[in-house]
């Protein structure tokens, strides 16, 4: 079952996703898009865990468990973040990070 696609392909994809996520987080000015970038980062981690588990350590399941828990925690994180974003929208009438700058040096 394994062997048709080498492990390297998964790692390249996940690394690309990770850095696209970082790039998106740093360049996007919309809070929802920033949150999506974080989801990209977390999903790249999931691909890594599952691929490593499947190809290198098929006798244990710890990588699968880890990715399941990361998915659950990501959902919780997104829920809290979106609740706060709604609150931001009520206070600032915008979800642009450049507008949310009451406190700075």
């Amino acid at each position, binding site marked *: 079952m394994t062997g048709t696609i080498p492990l390297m392909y998964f790692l390249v994809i996940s690394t690309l996703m990770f850095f696209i996520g970082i790039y998106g987080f740093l360049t996007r000015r919309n*809070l929802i898009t920033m949150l999506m970038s974080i989801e990209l980062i977390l999903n790249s981690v999931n691909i890594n865990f599952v691929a490593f588990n499947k190809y290198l350590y098929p006798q244990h399941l710890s990588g699968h468990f880890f990715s399941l828990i990361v998915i659950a925690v990501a959902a919780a994180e997104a829920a809290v973040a979106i609740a*706060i974003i709604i609150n931001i929208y009520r206070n600032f009438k915008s979800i642009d990070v450049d507008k949310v700058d009451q406190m700075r*040096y």
Partner: protein
Amino acid sequence: MSITDFLTMRHEVLLTILAILILIIDLNLKKEQKHYIIPIVLCLFMVHVIIGFLPAEGGVLFGGMYKTSALTMMMKNILNVGVMIILFQSNGWLRKPDNQEKMSEYFILLFSTLIGMYFMISSGDFLMFYLGLELATIPMAALAAYTHHQSRSAEAGIKLILSSALSSGILLFGLSLIYGTTGSIYFDKIGEVFTNSPLQILAFIFFFTGMAFKISLVPFHLWTADVYEGSPVNVTSYFSVISKGAASFIFVIILFTVFHSISYLWKDIVYLIAVSTMTVGNLFAMRQKNMKRFLAFSSIAQAGFILLGILGGNVLGMTSVIYFVLVYIFSNLGAFGVVAAISAATGKESMDDYDGLYATNPKLSLLMTLSMFSLAGIPPVAGFFGKFFLFTAAASGGYYWLVFIAVLNATVSLYYYLLVVKAMFINKNETPLAHFKSDFLTRVGLVSCMLGIFVLGFWSQIYEIINSLSIGITF
């Protein structure tokens, strides 16, 4: 669950029960009875703190995911004492009319983060560590955005959740690489097989970056000041003391147990970050006018001092870090307690408002002065010994230049800590803040900080107790 298992993880079990109990009690209270929740929670949490101090053997549960020893229990008890003081101090603020209806939410969120920290400290593998870390940070964002009608609070919340989510993403990527190269997520097994292959070093750097975000070390500190300023004062004190203390505890444990085989490498990184954290924290603290922002930068600088103990890398290092956090809890909570009391009574948070405070509120000024002396490390009070042991630990590792830079930084920090003292005692002010009397519970919290600052400075046994527990842990 047998009684020994219960004693092994009583902190977590009891606090979980307590959080659920608060929810149920809150459901059954009528709107005008809501304020009864404060004394109920204080009594229950007091029981929890006392049970936490019962002697118990350490143990391993859940197949090695959860590990606890006398040392980690000591850490949890230290955090418990800090939270107890914060609960006392937040009484005045919680009783304000706009917080009447959501008092219990404050307690539940606070306790959830504390449960997360417990699990984080006694984790035996990276899965439990990650779960604890997230449980300790996600409700924290909700706490930062607690006063939801204030735009500053909402801003603090979004800044905290986004930066902590990014940092845990980076940390997780490092963990996935560690899993891929070692095939395990257990601390013990990784520690045995961890070598210095390039991919593992990369993984370590990702992990270090993620942790540095959480402890707010310098290249990753930019969220700290904004979050501290925007959150309610008591929540800020919780961030700066309890959450930072817990994160530094687990950081030391993981560096010493999992990554000990590349300690020659992380010691260089920690060295550079310690220097930059102390220096930048100090330089930025000087120009702050808002008390919370000022204490935020002072807490960044203090985190730099904690790194000195980590560099020691032995039992002395471990002991000095724990002792310093214990001292730091009392001194920083003293400072934050005064800021919180003044903010709850008058709503003022700027340093200029503190001019001539001694004339009207001498007791608060006295506690503030003691806390500032303790934070700066002036001999008779506890802060001096905290810093002294950290410097000893770093010197025992041969880092004399680092100790020299740290001493210089401690001297510089004296300048801005004394600025606050000068404002209260010397600066003239036509209209100082009016005299006010805090409620009983807040005063209990403030007095216990003052006692802690003195007792820890004079009662040397506490250091020896921590030291004897630290010897048990293997690095």
